[in-house]
């Protein structure tokens, strides 16, 4: 096992624990928005789709690259927008102050 693979496996294992830990206290009403939010996050496959599409030259690769980019972008954009639509319904009853803290979160 080379060093790079070893690093990757380390990240993989640590990310499993973080993924479980970080959502372990979610209330029932947020199950669906959380599912939708994580759904948007796996749209990161767009990074992969761009990587394979960037150097595409054969017709097969071009076709695969194009379809992969379309699907992945739909996943990212649709995922975040639909999650936001679900969550904006909750805004009525929370302090408006919460709204500005996100812009400072980098």
């Amino acid at each position, binding site marked *: 096992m080379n060093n790079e693979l070893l690093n990757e496996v380390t990240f993989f294992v640590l990310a499993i624990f973080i993924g479980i830990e970080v959502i372990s206290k979610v209330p029932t009403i947020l199950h669906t928005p959380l599912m939708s939010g994580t759904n*948007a996050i796996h749209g990161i496959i767009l990074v992969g789709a761009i990587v*394979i599409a960037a150097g595409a030259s054969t017709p097969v690769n071009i076709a695969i690259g194009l379809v992969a980019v379309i699907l992945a972008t739909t996943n990212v954009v*649709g995922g975040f927008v*639909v999650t936001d639509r679900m969550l904006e319904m909750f805004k009525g009853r*929370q302090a408006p102050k*919460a709204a500005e803290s996100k812009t400072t979160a980098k």
Partner: protein
Amino acid sequence: MNLAIALAYLVAAVLFILGLKQLSSPKSARNGNFTAAAGMVIALLATLPLLHFTSTGATIIVIGVVIGALVGTIGARMVKMTAIPQMVALFNGVGGGAAALVAVAELLRFGEHPSFSLAFPSVFSIVIGSVSFAGSMVAFAKLQELMTGTPITYPGQQLVNGLLAAAIVGFVIAVLAIASVPFSFIALMLLALVLGVAFVLPIGGADMPVVISLLNAFTGLAVAASGFTLNNFALIVAGTLVGASGSLLTKMMSDAMGRSLVSVLFGAFGKVQAGAAAVAGQEGRSVRSASAEDLGTLLAYSQRVIIVPGYGLAVAQAQHAVRELAEVLEKRGVEVSYAIHPVAGRMPGHMNVLLAEANVPYEQLKEMDEINDEFKNADVVLIVGANDVVNPAARTSPGSPIFGMPILNADQAKNIVFMKRSMRPGFAGIDNELMFDPKTMMFFGDAKESLTKLVSAVKAA
């Protein structure tokens, strides 16, 4: 990997983790979504300098992003609140498809003898991504009612699915061991697509949110596997986060329905349904139906009213009408609260979202555990378009497919008003004894119109 890019990926990963954390609390959930989106933008921008674009490559990326962004935005903006679960299924499916395609492209690039550490994650991503894609499309079709929402079963189904899975494992070994078989991974992809369809067909519509959550976790893992293929840290971390949190979330969702994950996936929910139960149930038994005036009087002179909203309320877009009724009642000094079953509607949290939209005060929304002991003190329980979540069969008849699911104790109230469009069984496809209860009055019609009638009846009373 370039240091700056590695650091940008690290920032993105941290933002994903913070985003998930915020998403799990109602106060910060909406910000959590923005935080995760910011992480996504950073990861995407950081990737670009690393690449050598051909002009064709750059063109298809721009075209693809534009099309995808349009489809995603329009789809997510236009969809009705009631159709959101299937929209999530759709967005999840396309992500799985993209992960599988990325792995296919990499395998093509590796040629005939890729090393095991590259070939294995690619093949894994193709299989899991394809299963997620096909399964999500079936889930979408079921929820969108393009096909029947009831389970599709046939004798020997488990065996067929088992054989499919075994064939896939065989193919995986073949592709890995004898990698010189050209394009064998195409066959593998087709088999996995068939398995995805076959896997979701026997699962009923009521269980779909759990299945979508599971497929969501699958897609996360497929993305992580593609990350191993591409040696991309951002894909590995983000994909794994989703795979792990999605798996836990799937378990929590099935727990909220009082069902084990195994029975959701392999139990063919609602199999023992409609046919026998519905016929036997309705034959020779009558239900009591009431007029708006009767019910208006009953409600106006009650002290405590509990409203149980369900999917019918969402379909009729009756959330504003129900709030209006509650306000009219409160003006007369009636104490009103809403009993929210964890899986009322077609996704957990559906009712909270709808009622919040109609500005129903948050304090009036009571979760099941909180309110279940209060039904016996309620003068009237008003069931608006809900069915399975108040079906006493979940407590009393061990043969019922919903047996063991925690339900709202609506049957303990002094009067039960059932607002429904028809006598049709609920989404689980089973009859509801509660409709035949002597304390029950049926009020048929579209939920919104019926509620409006009740508002005027209460005002007149």
